């Protein structure tokens, strides 16, 4: 094989890893409000198709690279009731003296609106959403955590699904924190239903809700170590042996990204 016939890494017909210079997840700090132009990363970038790392790639997909998913910021007009809602929310925030940058990004995707919220503002924002005349989000449907994986700096997201029964609207609030500093204010004083749901999020993801009346484990035993739904926590599956060959537990099988 001559020098010329060997394809450059990352070029056509090359199975070698492409040098990853531009498509990696944004640098640490990109989720901070001080760099507003940058997208919020939600997901990890992927390379290849079969997660092969330690041996030669024979699939031909080794050069494939997909950037991490970043929800696109929505632009006005959002369409539907989203614009009315955004106007009312802006006015209510101004009334209560909450700066507009409490909301870092607005995303409208698949007919659902997501507000990415600065973590220090979540309690005030929930109070505004519940009490303002034009908003009236009476019910906090669901609070849950999402772990976007180790590659993402602010990988732990807390997602709030709010429902306004008066206007029959649903919105989603999302707050992201890092594993090193997983603190955010509890919303139990505004929505008492968040009590158990925040305990579950603490239990499963290790997010600490400051001001929660009793933030203890709820599903796992009190003396459990670790937070089971984090991506770096193993599933704990059992390898199965069948006719001499071993089928690995689900968390060690190859993933098809």
């Amino acid at each position, binding site marked *: 094989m001559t020098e010329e016939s060997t394809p450059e890494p990352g070029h056509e017909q090359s199975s070698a890893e492409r040098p990853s210079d531009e498509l990696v997840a944004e640098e640490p700090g990109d989720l901070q409000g001080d760099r507003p132009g940058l997208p919020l990363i*939600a*997901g*990890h970038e*992927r390379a290849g198709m079969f997660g092969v790392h330690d041996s030669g790639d024979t699939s031909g997909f080794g050069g494939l690279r*997909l950037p991490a*998913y970043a*929800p696109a910021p929505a632009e006005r007009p959002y369409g539907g009731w989203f614009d009315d809602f955004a106007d009312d929310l802006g006015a209510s925030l101004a009334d209560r003296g909450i700066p507009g940058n409490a909301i870092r990004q607005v995303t409208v*995707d*698949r007919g*659902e609106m*997501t507000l990415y919220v600065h973590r220090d503002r979540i309690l005030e924002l929930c109070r505004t959403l519940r009490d303002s005349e034009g908003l009236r989000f*009476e*019910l*906090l*449907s*669901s609070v*849950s955590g*999402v*772990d*976007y994986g180790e590659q993402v700096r602010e990988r732990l997201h807390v*997602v709030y*699904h709010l429902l306004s*029964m008066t206007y*029959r609207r*649903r919105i*989603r609030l999302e707050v992201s924190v890092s594993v090193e500093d997983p603190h955010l204010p509890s919303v139990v004083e505004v*929505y*008492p*239903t968040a*009590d*158990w*749901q925040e305990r*579950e999020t603490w239990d*499963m993801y290790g997010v600490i809700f400051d001001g929660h009346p009793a933030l203890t*484990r*709820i*599903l*796992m*035993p009190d003396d459990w170590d670790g937070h*089971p*739904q984090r991506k770096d926590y193993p*599933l704990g*599956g059992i390898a199965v042996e069948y006719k001499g060959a071993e089928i690995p537990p*689900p*968390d060690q*099988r190859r*993933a*098809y*990204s």
Partner: protein
Amino acid sequence: MSTDTNDPQVSEDELAESRVASEDELAESRVAEERRTTEGPVYTVTGGDWDSVLGAVTDDHDERIVINMGPQHPSTHGVLRLVLELEGETVTQARSVIGYLHTGIEKNCEYRTWTQGVTFVTRCDYLSPLFTETAYCLGVEKLLGITAPRRATLGRVLLMEINRVASHLVALATGGMELGALTAMTAGFREREVALHLLEYLTGLRMNHAYIRPGGLAQDFPEDYRDHVMYFVNWMDKYLPDYDKLLTGQPIWRQRMEGVGYLPVDGCLALGATGPILRSAGLPWDMRKTEPYCLYDEFEFEVPTATEADCFARYRLRVAEMHESLKIIRQCLDKLEPGPVMVADKKVAWPAQLSLGSDGLGNSLEHVRKIMGQSMESLIHHFKLVTEGFKVPAGQVYTAVESPRGELGAHLVSDGGTRPMRVHLREPSFINLQTMPAMSEGGMIADVIAAVASIDPVMGGCDR
């Protein structure tokens, strides 16, 4: 062993002696085991031994008693543990402890394909599995940007309403049993058996169906499904009025439930309670009406409400909802027309052509013959789609359905791969159980049981 009793060497006297000894032992066992702790004496009560506890309490009666009830207790509606602080028979503080049925379903979903996820989520709330399947599949379909065919959607409605009747029957049956109305239990489970037989006929399994799949249904209903559905509807028409005769007017039943477990509408909203609890407080919030999904806006039915906000109102609502469900089932049969039950996209549709063979349900021989013998492409695609699954575009959705217990939501996050990034189920059992202290503190200990029964938590769903 049976020869021992006929052994001539054992005399009558010996037998009598041994009987006396066992009675002494029994009396001894009626003393509750006691141990001293820094928190005060702790008794392990096993039944028939309350006297020793009460004796100790009468000695210094101003001390509070904390009763631990469950997780293995016939009156706590599954593996629910209640910790009750008592002043006499009055509950001053009530807390529930959950997690005894936590199975890590949400975590497991992240390691399987989107289609395999149905098999997991159906095991959450084992009394209403078809609702969890529907909420999950609607979410996956929203992420994919596809809609299930009309016949599949109507089929889902049919299955969900049969399932709603079955679930409410268990709520009545177990609730009745916990209050001592054993006939309610035998009657409720008798009717539920008919419902489960029907579900078995339609989907192949009594529970954990995994029949509703992203894109539609796993397969079409059997040809004569109408007769079987009508048999069930007729059965319910015949026996459902009996519940009014047996329970609604019965004085003991009413006295155990009226004015008990009171939770007004503001309390419901603050604590997130939905379903019959919210509707018993007067708010007609039923997502089949308020946020119609699955073509529910084409159906004619009522949303029963009450204003008493107590256990009895919740019982009446459940009975009324069963009548409404039967109405929907009838309309469903009229609307169901032949057609596909799965989207045409072969990547989303599970690539199986199921048929009944001599060894049970499986891929049809014809299909296997085709993919193995004729088309290498078919074989490759079959293999890759089954092992890898299909890709779902990145993003997140929240889809909710009205389950028998309230709002059942599925929050699904995809990162663009073939497996979910996150599957979260907003289980009404979990959220509604938070209302237990508000319903029962300040009441009698017997009312706690009535309150928990009226919440109707399913611990499989609560703990997931």
